[in-house]
Each structure stands twice: as structure tokens, then as C-alpha cells.
């Protein structure tokens, strides 16, 4: 048994209470411990990704119980990729939170941060649907704390809505789990695939109901159309580093849909195979529309970015809902891209907002380093809107190319291209108001620009994330090659089932 697989879950789970109990009065120590934990997580994630790159599916049996009875963690290319993405994002966000002092504005930032990482990594690694629920709750309860971190009226109110929404979602998740267990007698994703494939017709309707319930739950996490309304308020009111970290949380929903609907309810399984195309695709198209019009209508910077995140989730889910290896390759590329693009926008916006003291989209006198922030915002915005030369353009191109089926093409192309156009217009307007109109106004007398300049550490995270987008564009060929293998592995249901259930390789 190799214990590397469980480390991304165990390590943050150990760091979090140490930081919470031992270092709660000393922010310096807490910062050191938190950075150490996150960098170690990145190292482990890199190692795991290297292991998974061989194409093998590693299975970690907790307590060494065989799969359908015991709990398993599964490391394949997809989960390794998602954990790695989480770790890289976490390092970037953590540097930003420390450099700008966000972590000191409320209690227990680092503890909650580590618990959040534990929940996210656990959700990506688990091979058991009840454990997926448990890890969802772990990451959610940490995110409740992070959401209202630093307090304030609007933030707490938005946080309350976020909590209520997610608790209702959790209840729905449990109803789905109960139905699934009642009809299949198992909660292991691979075992469920085996059972559902041979389910008698009279039980099939029940499985279908459970699959739809599960899809609604994951759609809540992924902020898809009818249940997307929590996202703009939450992301716009959370503190910026938290919103940047939350960029991965919507991807947990996308990951869960991808995983469950390829393995358990996937193609070839009659009761549930048509669900994704019937429900997911229209929802994704409508999500793009909501996001794009939200960007156009937003009057504050943070909601503007939140709506653009919504639009990117719609684009991502449109590709996911096609459920073909090509579309999944495109979806994964866009998933990596949109995570960094969203994080980058939130981090840049935080630097801008901190200098303007509010995030309203109206001109105020130019702040220090106006040109630099304008450039950063420009870079992040073209990343998010999907313009060349950054990776968003390639991601959207791949998605458009993958969605060539006659039934899908018209809607998908119109929504993605139209959505991109509206997003560009929205960002261009916001940027010109924020940065260009500002220079036309006279500089205020009281503010001393020198003191409020951003230091190298404050700028680094935003620049690194733009760098990641550029890197993703430059390395598009090897990356998409890797993702192609990943997509093929996801659709290799037999391989997954043998690895988890059979006497396959013990990781």
C-alpha cells in the first residue's frame, strides 16, 4: 500500500487543528505553518500526478477492506489533475492573503483554509459516493467560515443565504443517496455502475430519480442555471482571496458530474444515460446567458467578476454535457484555464478595490500604479473572456470544435460566442471606467500615493496566475495531449471498475 494517495486529505487535516489550537494567537506562526502545509500539499500533488501519469488507476483501501465493503480512495489522471490544480491555486491564494493581510482580519483563516483544502482534495479522491457527501460537507463547513471571514453586514447576510442554500442542497444529496442505496444496495461508484447496468426494469425508475436528484445537487455546486443564484452574491461579497479559492469549488460540482455520469450513470447504462444531454446541456446554455447578461448589467466590480465566473461555468458544463472524449478533453483544458482566470481576476480586483476603497464601477481619481493595475486587469479580463493570446481562447476553440454535433452546434456556438462577446463588452466598459476615466480626474490632495503602492509580494500572486494562463497557452499541445489521455481514461469504465473492484493494482 502506498500512502501517498491519502496524504492530500490527511495532511491538511493535521495542519488545520495544529494551527487552530496551538497557533491561534500568533499569526506569524500560523502563516508559516499554513504555507508549509500548502507547499507540502503541492509537492505531494505533483508526486501523485507523476504517478497517475503512467495511466494506471491506483486504489487506496482504507483499513485494507476490499472495495464494495470498505471505503476507497481512487487516484487516476483526473483526480490527480484536480488535486494538483487545487494545490497550485491554494499556494497562489495563500500568498495573496498573507501579503495583503486578509488573513489577519478575522479569526482562524488558516485553520479554515486547511480544512477547505482537505475537503476539496477528499472530494476529488474519493471513490465512494457517501464519502463524496462527507467531503462536500467538510469543504462546505470550512467555506462557511471563510465566506464570512472579516465580517461586515453584507458579507454575513450573503453568507447566510449561501449556508441555507447549501444545507438544502445537502439534504437533497442525502435523499439521493438514500434512494440510490435502496435501489442498488451499494454506494461505491464503481460497484454502483456494475449494479445499475443489470438493474431490473421496475427498479430503473427509482435509479433515474436518484440520478436526477444527484445531478441537481452537483448543479447547485457547479452553479448551473436554475440553481445558480447563490453564486453572484456569495462570490461578490466574500473577501477576495476566499473568492479566488472558491474558484475551485464550482469545479468540484463539475468534477462530480463528470465522474458519476461517466462511471455510474454513464453511456451504455440504459436507465440514466440520456440524462446529461437532456438536462445538462440546456442548463449550461442558459447559465452562459445569465452570466453574460450579468456581466453586462453589473454595476460593481466584484459582482461583474462573479457573473463572468458563472458564464465560464456554463461554457465548461456545455462541454462536459456532451460526454465524448473530445469534448471532455476540451472541458478539462477549459476547467484548468477558468480556475486560474477567475482566481486572477479576483486577486487583481482585490488590489484595485483596496486602493479605491469601494468596488463601484464609477470613476474616482487615479490611484497609485494605475497603469500597472490596468495592465493586470486587462490581462486577467482577456483571459476570462477567452481572447488570444491567453489560454481561454484555445479552451473555447477546443470546446467549439468538440461541440460539432448538429443538434448541439447551433445553440452551443451561439451561446459561447455571444457570451464571449458580451463578456468582452462588459469587461471593456468596466476597465475603461476604472482605469481610463480615472486618469481624467484630478488627483486628490489628501491621499499620498506612495504609501499605498502594492509591494512585490502583493502583485506576485496575480502575476503568477496570469503567468499560468500564458503557460497553459504555450504548453497547449503537451497539456491537451495529457488531457486527452485523461479523458480516455475517464471513459474507460471497465478499467476503473477492475481497478476498484477487482484484484487490480494496489496503490
Amino acid at each position: 500500500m502506498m500512502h501517498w494517495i491519502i496524504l492530500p486529505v490527511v495532511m491538511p487535516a493535521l495542519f488545520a487543528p495544529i494551527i487552530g489550537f496551538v497557533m491561534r494567537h500568533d499569526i506569524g506562526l500560523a502563516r508559516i505553518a499554513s504555507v508549509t502545509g500548502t507547499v507540502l500539499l503541492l509537492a505531494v500533488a505533483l508526486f501523485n500526478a507523476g504517478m497517475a501519469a503512467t495511466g494506471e488507476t491506483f486504489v487506496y483501501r482504507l483499513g485494507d477492506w476490499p472495495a464494495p465493503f470498505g471505503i476507497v480512495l481512487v487516484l487516476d489522471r483526473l483526480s490527480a489533475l484536480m488535486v494538483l490544480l487545487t494545490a497550485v491555486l491554494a499556494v497562489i491564494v495563500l500568498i495573496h492573503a498573507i501579503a495583503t493581510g486578509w488573513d489577519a482580519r478575522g479569526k482562524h483563516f488558516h485553520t479554515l483554509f486547511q480544512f477547505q483544502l482537505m475537503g476539496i482534495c477528499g472530494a476529488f479522491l474519493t471513490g465512494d459516493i457517501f464519502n463524496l457527501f462527507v467531503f462536500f460537507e467538510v469543504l462546505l463547513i470550512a467555506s462557511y467560515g471563510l465566506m464570512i471571514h472579516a465580517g461586515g453586514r453584507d458579507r454575513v447576510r450573503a453568507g447566510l443565504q449561501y449556508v441555507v442554500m447549501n444545507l438544502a442542497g445537502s439534504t437533497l444529496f442525502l435523499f439521493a443517496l438514500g434512494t440510490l442505496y435502496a435501489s442498488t444496495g451499494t454506494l461505491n461508484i464503481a460497484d454502483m455502475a456494475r449494479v445499475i447496468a443489470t438493474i431490473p426494469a421496475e427498479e430503473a425508475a427509482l435509479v433515474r430519480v436518484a440520478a436526477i436528484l444527484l445531478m441537481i445537487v452537483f448543479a447547485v455546486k457547479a452553479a448551473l442555471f436554475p440553481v445558480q443564484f447563490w453564486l453572484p452574491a456569495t462570490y461578490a461579497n466574500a473577501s477576495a482571496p476566499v473568492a479566488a479559492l472558491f474558484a475551485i469549488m464550482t469545479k468540484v460540482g463539475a468534477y462530480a458530474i463528470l465522474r458519476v455520469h461517466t462511471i455510474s450513470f454513464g453511456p451504455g447504462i440504459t436507465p440514466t444515460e440520456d440524462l446529461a444531454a437532456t438536462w445538462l446541456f440546456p442548463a449550461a446554455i442558459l447559465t452562459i446567458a445569465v452570466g453574460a447578461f450579468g456581466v453586462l448589467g453589473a454595476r460593481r466590480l466584484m459582482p461583474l467578476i462573479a457573473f463572468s465566473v458563472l458564464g465560464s461555468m456554463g461554457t465548461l458544463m456545455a462541454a462536459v454535457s456532451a460526454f465524448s472524449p473530445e469534448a471532455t478533453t476540451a472541458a478539462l483544458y477549459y476547467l484548468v484555464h477558468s480556475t486560474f482566470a477567475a482566481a486572477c481576476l479576483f486577486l487583481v480586483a482585490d488590489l484595485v478595490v483596496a486602493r479605491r476603497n469601494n468596488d463601484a464601477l464609477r470613476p474616482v481619481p487615479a490611484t497609485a500604479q494605475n497603469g500597472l493595475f490596468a495592465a493586470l486587469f486587462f490581462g486577467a479580463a482577456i483571459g476570462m473572456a477567452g481572447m488570444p493570446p491567453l489560454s481561454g481562447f484555445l479552451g473555447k476553440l477546443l470546446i467549439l470544435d468538440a461541440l460539432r454535433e448538429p443538434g448541439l452546434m447551433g445553440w452551443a456556438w451561439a451561446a459561447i460566442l455571444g457570451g464571449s462577446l458580451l463578456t468582452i463588452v462588459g469587461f471593456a466598459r468596466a476597465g475603461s471606467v476604472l482605469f481610463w476615466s480615472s486618469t481624467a480626474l484630478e488627483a486628490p490632495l489628501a491621499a499620498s500615493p506612495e504609501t499605498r503602492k502594492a509591494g512585490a509580494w502583493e502583485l506576485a500572486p496575480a502575476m503568477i496566475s496570469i503567468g499560468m494562463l500564458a503557460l497553459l497557452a504555450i504548453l497547449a499541445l503537451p497539456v491537451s495531449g495529457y488531457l486527452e489521455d485523461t479523458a480516455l481514461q475517464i471513459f474507460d469504465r471497465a478499467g476503473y471498475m477492475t481497478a476498484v473492484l477487482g484484484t487490480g493494482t494496489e496503490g
Partner: protein
Amino acid sequence: MEMILASAIGVLTAAGVYLLLRLRTFPVILGLAFLSYAVNVFIFASGRLAIDQSPILSRYGEASYTDPLPQALVLTAIVISFGMTAVLVMIGLAAYFEAESDRVDIDQNDDRAEGGK
């Protein structure tokens, strides 16, 4: 027994959803509590209903036993919903004291152009 259990789950769920839609903090918390009771009973039922049977194999008696897994699941679900309710109460209180209103929905000023950081 099936009838009683099914209607109990139904009534609890209906009450929970109704209270959730009241959009005021205290009813919403109660509503979520009702929903979590409903879901706990529901998970119990997912292991099939049985009377007078232990959830473990008896070494001495005949080998008739009820499914132990739903009981483990319910235990986890109860613990989680308990913790979540506590968090929700705390956040609800904080929101009430900050905003001096117990409404959960978005207020009129939410999209005001001034914005508050």
C-alpha cells in the same frame, strides 16, 4: 408501518420546505432541521424496514439481521446536520445583529451602485 413511515417523511419534508420558504432566519433553521429529520428517517428506510432485528449478525440465533449500513450513514448524517445547524444558528445570529433584520432574502439595496466593502 410503511404507511406511517412514508407519511411521516412526507409531512416532515413538507413542513421543512414550507418553513424554508418563509425566508426568515428562525423558520428557515427550523425548516432545515425538519428536512434533516425527514432525510434521516428516509435513509433508515433505504435499508428496508424490519422489526426486532439487530443490525449485526447474531452468533447464536438464526442469521436474520437488518442492514447495518443505513444506520452508519444516518449516524454520520445526524452528526453533520447537527454541526451544520449550530453553524447556521451562529451565522443567523450574526446576520441578525449586523443587519437588524431576520430576513434571509436579498434586500432592496443589494445592487446599489455605491457598494460596501
